[in-house]
């Protein structure tokens, strides 16, 4: 008896559509996202401009795609840094335990004690803003949460029978960790990647909203929201289209992450 996992399906579809749109945006947008057109400024959504235009006459749909691309790129790189480093640290500490585990986890605790966005803002005010600095700062800040999840999984799996069995065959610790345990915790890892992805999108948007993040000329959903705030009543479509786009992107990945967790529980 197989129960259909609708959370996973809907989440997967929404996320896939959003990513596809953004990828499409990298090769083709209806208008040049930065082209100014004085005659067409502040237009409400219509067929020619799906999301309308801003007060410089720039096509908002094109700009949202452009901003989505920045968010996606930052989120992807952040999760890659946090996920890979976190997995390596978490698997080592979880599998071996002992002193290294204690030291790394206490360090982890102290980093986790501060809200990520606060730490990110502090780092940015020290090192400066810009796409790549944001990626690096967020990536490093994401390591602890991944490390903690992976550590828990490895600590649980290491005493399982199949691990003992691999060890009696003479498998070394790295073989046991990465050929045997890692594939067994893959679902958990994937769902935390999906959730981490969301957190990264939100963190980047939040920082850009506070103009501590991505700087012009790079478009960013967060900065667009900050601009839209000023004309919330005269051009509501600006905030609505940008906001909805971000909500859909995040919703897709949250559902995907949640669906993967449900999948794991059913196994």
């Amino acid at each position, binding site marked *: 008896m197989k129960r259909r996992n609708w959370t996973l399906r809907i989440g997967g579809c929404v996320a896939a559509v959003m990513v596809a749109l953004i990828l499409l945006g990298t090769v083709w947008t209806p208008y040049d996202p930065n082209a100014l057109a004085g005659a067409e400024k502040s237009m409400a959504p219509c067929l020619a401009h799906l999301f309308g235009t801003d007060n410089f006459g720039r096509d908002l749909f094109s700009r949202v795609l452009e901003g989505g691309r920045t968010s996606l790129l930052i989120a992807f790189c952040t999760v890659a840094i946090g996920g890979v480093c976190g997995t390596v640290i978490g698997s080592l500490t979880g599998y071996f335990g002992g002193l290294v585990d204690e030291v790394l986890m206490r360090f982890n605790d102290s980093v986790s004690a501060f809200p990520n966005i606060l730490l990110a803002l502090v780092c940015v005010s020290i090192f400066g803003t810009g796409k790549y600095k944001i990626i690096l700062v967020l990536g490093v800040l994401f390591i602890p949460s991944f490390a903690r999840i992976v550590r828990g999984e490895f600590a649980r799996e290491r005493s*399982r*029978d*199949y691990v*003992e*069995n*691999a*060890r*009696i*065959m*003479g*498998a*070394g610790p790295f*073989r046991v960790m990465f*050929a*045997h345990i890692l*594939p*067994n915790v*893959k679902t958990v890892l994937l769902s935390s990647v999906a959730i981490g992805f969301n957190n990264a999108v939100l963190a980047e948007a939040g920082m850009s909203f506070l103009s501590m993040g991505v700087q012009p000329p790079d478009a960013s959903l967060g900065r667009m929201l900050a601009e839209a705030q000023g004309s919330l009543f005269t051009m509501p479509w600006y905030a609505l289209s940008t906001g909805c786009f971000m909500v859909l992107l995040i919703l897709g990945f949250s559902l995907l992450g949640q669906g993967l967790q449900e999948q794991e529980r059913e196994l």
Partner: protein
Amino acid sequence: MIEVKNLRVAFPDKAGKPEQAVKGISFTIGDGEILGIVGESGSGKTQTALALAGLSPRKASVEGEILLDGRDLMPLSREEIRNVQGKDIAMVFQEPMTSLDPTMRVGRQVEEVLEIHTKLDKNARQELALQALRDVELRDVETVYRKYPHELSGGQRQRAMIAGAIIGGPKLLIADEPTTALDVTIQAEILYLLGKLNREKGMSILFISHDLRVIRRLCHRTLVMHGGHIVEQGDVGQVFQDPQDDYTKTLIASIPTRRY
């Protein structure tokens, strides 16, 4: 030949004082011999097996000598032990349902010992794995080779485990209650299979069980363990017909007999 001399396994108790699970036992396993260790839970039989396999839990302290063909395994480093594990000493666990990696195809797990210890290429490994699966009397081995563990029955999994254990041609196969989790018919088949592998491959087997009937059926010689000591050892026939120790007598008396 395996010689175990004065083996002690101790665990720290709550106060940190060492508490001995195995209290200085000595025995030998001859080439091609099936030695049975029998005893109740907590008698130290599983800790003895794990010590032989180099798999004692981290917090355990293990002392004594374990000689494999005259070479002491105790002073070896972890890396050196890994060269013995799987190649010279293999082990089959009690639970076939959980002892195979659920995410890896059965064939790959059967040939894993070869992947670790030899430089054979993929095709050569597959040939040997298929042969090993045939040796444990699985049918349709090409299909089994490609399956995942959850697609096999308990008996098939235990056979696959045994195939993975014997593929490297070990001198000693340690079987820790390998039939306990299986139903009686499959149990009989696995015992028959172990006997056959012992005769055909000349491999020594250390068979651990709490079931005296199983020991009597399969083993040549047996040790009775109680509270970390060996209370009696000898040929199976002799121990069963003429037990010397009181504990052994009680054990034998507790075997259910058929009533008509």
